[in-house]
């Protein structure tokens, strides 16, 4: 099962990367970036998964004494939780800059931003 998640995550990263590099519309590039972001999260969670085990929450189903044999690795999950929240912050920042570019230049097409072109 982990293989499926990993493969999907890798494919999402590639799709997102391709989209971000080929599109010339800034909003489309940001959309592609969020797809790649989801892919990275999926890969990280997939690496933490172990077959036949359950979520790292201790209750009646998973006693403390048996926890080490029953739960999956909680550390990647904590990291991905952080990554998702930061991802929204980054996306909001990118969108804000896109809006600002639009206000100053009246276009979101990067082929029209020619100041640094040579």
């Amino acid at each position, binding site marked *: *099962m*982990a293989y*499926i*998640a990993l*493969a*999907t995550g890798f*494919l*999402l990263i590639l*799709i*997102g990367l*391709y*989209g971000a590099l080929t*599109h*010339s*519309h800034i*909003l*489309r590039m*940001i*959309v*592609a970036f*969020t*797809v790649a972001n*989801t892919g990275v*999260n*999926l890969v990280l*969670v*997939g690496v*933490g*998964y172990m077959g*036949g*085990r*359950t*979520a*790292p*929450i201790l209750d009646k189903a998973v006693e403390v004494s048996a926890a080490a044999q029953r739960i*999956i690795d909680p550390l990647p*999950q904590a990291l*991905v*939780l952080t990554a*998702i*929240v930061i*991802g*929204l912050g980054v*996306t*909001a920042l990118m*969108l804000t800059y*896109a*809006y600002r570019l*639009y206000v100053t230049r*009246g*276009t*979101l*097409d990067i082929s*029209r931003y020619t100041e640094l072109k040579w």
Partner: protein
Amino acid sequence: MDLFIRDNLMLAMLLLLSLAMLVAAFMAIYSKRSLPIAMLAAGLVSLLASVQFLLLGAPDVAMTEAAIGSGLTTFLFFFILGRVRGGANRD
């Protein structure tokens, strides 16, 4: 036996979700026409990913992804889209 069925069911669900996610991701990248559809497709990728997180035994991550990744992010996109509408030469 029960365990066997359960495992296979989960495998099938995971495969189906992965397939749907990839289709949605293709829509998010390759929909030449409409930007709103691309944004919604990106939100769909997030939503399906959150279900997949649940199947992978990460309910915390699933909740975060559903609330933040597919909810607030999609909304932010549409917010900005509404602001830049009308002037975007190529949409």
